């Protein structure tokens, strides 16, 4: 299993300099991928913009959205952003897409929330097919032969979408067992649709190694829209090296291919602590 790290692009107050330095250090650390989250109505840096900045100061590390809320963007613009990041990074980009969980982001973007599932399917179909002849460059195909495509979500419909268009599954976080059960469903969907081989399985978690309480406060705030679940997400943050190690082992045992650990504070020391914990 590979382990990647998140950029603090959705941690309020993270300035450009910190973001860029974070990316630079991640590139020099034991991380496979640098990933971002997506949120409109929150003090955060747009994911493709953040990855573009990261692309400029890194040379090795993979870049990924984990995930971007697809339907908030028109399919052509989404494709354009993705191929741009891929070009800027010399082909290091992986596009993770899902419908997201926030109504208010849809409102802000002026997009209908009710049809989000079908909208994401259309978007994925566009990226996998129509895009090739849409005259949008730089031309690089979406899918295993080009920009890897991960799809997230827990419903059967989301898993079918993943198995239909995707190369892999992006899980939304939780203890290893929860990941394992979602991974089984993803594999079942993959088989059901008759895809050969197996999907790449990506997981994620949160770390708060330096200041656990500040990290949890961020999570409570970031996930306040989920009501009572915010507390549970905050409680799941990994606050010690021991917890990180257990979590990494747990995910590896459940068959995860790539685990992304997201920061909860924009504090470079947390990156260094994680690098040390993993080495």
């Amino acid at each position, binding site marked *: 299993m590979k382990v990647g790290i998140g950029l603090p692009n959705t941690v309020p107050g993270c300035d450009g300099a910190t973001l860029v330095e974070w990316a630079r250090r991640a590139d020099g650390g034991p991380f496979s991928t640098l990933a971002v989250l997506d949120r409109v109505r929150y003090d955060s840096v747009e994911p493709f913009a953040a990855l573009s900045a990261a692309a400029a100061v890194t040379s090795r590390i993979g870049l990924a959205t984990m995930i971007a809320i697809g339907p908030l963007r028109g399919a052509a613009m989404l494709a354009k952003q993705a191929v741009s990041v891929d070009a800027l990074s010399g082909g290091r980009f992986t596009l993770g897409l899902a419908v997201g969980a926030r109504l208010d982001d849809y409102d802000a973007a002026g997009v209908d929330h009710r049809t989000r599932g079908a909208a994401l399917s259309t978007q994925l179909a566009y990226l996998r097919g129509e895009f090739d002849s849409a005259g949008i460059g730089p031309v690089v195909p979406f899918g295993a032969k080009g920009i890897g495509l991960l799809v997230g979500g827990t419903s059967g*419909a989301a898993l079918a979408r993943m198995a239909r268009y995707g190369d892999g599954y992006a899980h939304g976080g939780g203890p290893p067992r929860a990941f394992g059960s979602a991974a*089984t469903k993803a594999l079942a969907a993959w088989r059901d*649709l*008759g895809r050969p081989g197996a999907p790449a399985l990506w997981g994620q978690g949160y770390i708060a190694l330096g200041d656990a309480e500040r990290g949890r406060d961020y999570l409570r705030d970031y996930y306040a829209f989920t009501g009572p679940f915010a507390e549970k997400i905050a409680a799941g943050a990994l606050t010690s090296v021991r917890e990180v190690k257990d979590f990494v082992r747990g995910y590896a045992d459940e068959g995860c291919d790539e685990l992304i650990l997201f920061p909860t504070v924009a504090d470079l020391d947390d990156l260094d602590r994680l690098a040390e914990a993993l080495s």
Partner: protein
Amino acid sequence: MKVAIIGAGPAGLYLAILLRKAGHEVSVLERNAPDATFGWGVVFSEETLGALRDADPATHLEITDSFARWSSVDIRYQGKLLRSRGHSFSAIARKHLLSILQRRAAELGADLRFGVEVDELPEADLVVAADGANSRVRTRDFRASVKPQGCKYVWFGTDLVLDSFTFSFKETEFGLFQAHAYPFDENTSTWIVECAEPVWRRAGLDTMSETESIAFCEKLFADDLGGHRLMSNRSLWLDFPLVRCASWHRGNVVLLGDAAHTAHFSIGSGTKLAMEDAIALATALARHSDLGAALTEYELDRQPMVERFQQAAGESAAYFGRTATYTGFEPVQFAFNLLTRSGRVSHTNLAQRDPDLIRVLDAWFAAGTSMVPGAVAPAPLFAPLRLGSTTLTNRLVAEDAGDPVRAAQAGAGLVMTGPVAVSPEGRICPDTPLTAEVSVDDVHQAGALVGLRLTHAGARGATRPPADGLDIPLPPTQAWPLLAASSVSFGPFAQTPKAMDAGDLAAARQAFADAATTAADAGVDVLELDLADGHLLAGFLSPLTNRRDDEWGGEHRWAYPLSVLDAVREVWPRLLSVRLTVTDWVPKGLGLPEGIRLAKAVREHGADLVHVRAGQSVAEARPEFRRGYLTTLSDQVRNQAGVPTLVGGYLTTPDEVNTIVAAGRADLCVLTPQPSPIEAVVLS
């Protein structure tokens, strides 16, 4: 901390004990009198007892001292009695359990107030709603789903003292009734009676008084009761409420036990879950000074466990809702199906608990009623299956397996190849073959039969190969024109197919028959006709994709696929399987009841086997994927349409296959083994 607990059931009282031991100030408010409670005895399992011993040795001792214990399950069915041994059960009178807990809580200084109906939340640092399945607190302050689950039931006692867990099934003119019964003290047993809602109505139980309903049930189970009576304790016919609640705490209010979640009584776990909740909550409160953090931890700790039990309980409740469909089973299979109903006990588990039963089951499964006493046989998946004039050597089917000879060598009794398209425009992708590419002799030599799936992709044609994604249309320069029941495109950007005219229909039918003839000449053993997965013929079956108003549409949606089946059956001499979508998994699509009728029709038109499939009729559906997600569908098709079935649905272990085929939920299984070569096990 000042804690107010609403409800003096097992959850509330046990928490009162644990929190008093931790030094909190505890009051318990209960609307009933101390000795007034519903129900009779409740069952416990071994694993719960360990947790109770660690949490409070005093009550553990008293509880286990009053247990009725037994180790066998009796199944009374069609005048026969089957006994399965090696289980370990214990049970206690609910009333007695409560009195032990009341005494201990009072002794530890909890303030128990009976006869207090709580309406307004009491003032306290922590308010615990342990007010049962119909929790008023939950209804008022939490978002929950409450739905009736399973059959109508009534919870009686009897003065017959049983020596095992007893299930008794009674066929009546109204339908099937069943009792779940078990002892719980020296004088009394629990006797729960259950039946499907229509049966309950037909029997007139909806209008009977309590006395009449007791008399009815006593008469029904007279031979089991042997002159003993049934006793009521506010025993009314009820629906079991399935309670699910996404979040169990809000501010300083927390739900405990049945108030937060229920698990159908047929897996006997509600009391255990309720008391374990109390342990988890007390532990979390001891670990955290912050109340919010403690309540969150309690929930995180308990929810995964509760979900697992609710899953098992749901399977069990659904099983008891359709027991009438298993009355044709031989007793030993009936028993095995019953014992494995919830998915928690498999063939392997039972082989450990009750090796005798499994030996008899395996021998019966291999040899039928001609089995010799004491016979031993291989596990059910290795039992041959005779269908018509064809004999499959075992129950394993390989599908999409790459090299068919390797699949045969790996143990499959039947290797399905294909799909082969019956005509060029029926191809799924450019490299979909038009004739079988398998060397039948080589597969035969490796010990397996060869199957071949014949398809016409219909609206799902002209796409890229599945390795590169599904339903991704080929660019127009490489695509070919598509045909379908109606002009409904399959997914976004897919080509709109042409609705088939009379000429197309005749040609496609002929193409299927010709392909079947070719396959027969090539020596293929099993032909599978594709009426599934949104392909051409399935497109006629679903109202979502068949919008025709001619003789092939509307109420005649089945007609064209059945006419193709007839044409194929006429020329195909050997085993014929129909791959069939039995539900679209879309609200307005084809649903399971129609799917079952369809399976029956397919059988009547000459299919020897139905390969049960679901979903994929349209691109946006609501499937539910998990391990074995098609098994229950196969069970219902097989036992309600009376047709042998083949089922996949992500089965990855031989144990799953043994359990499914021996329980009569399918006859053949597609096994998807984890591709673990010997190197993955023998590391050096």
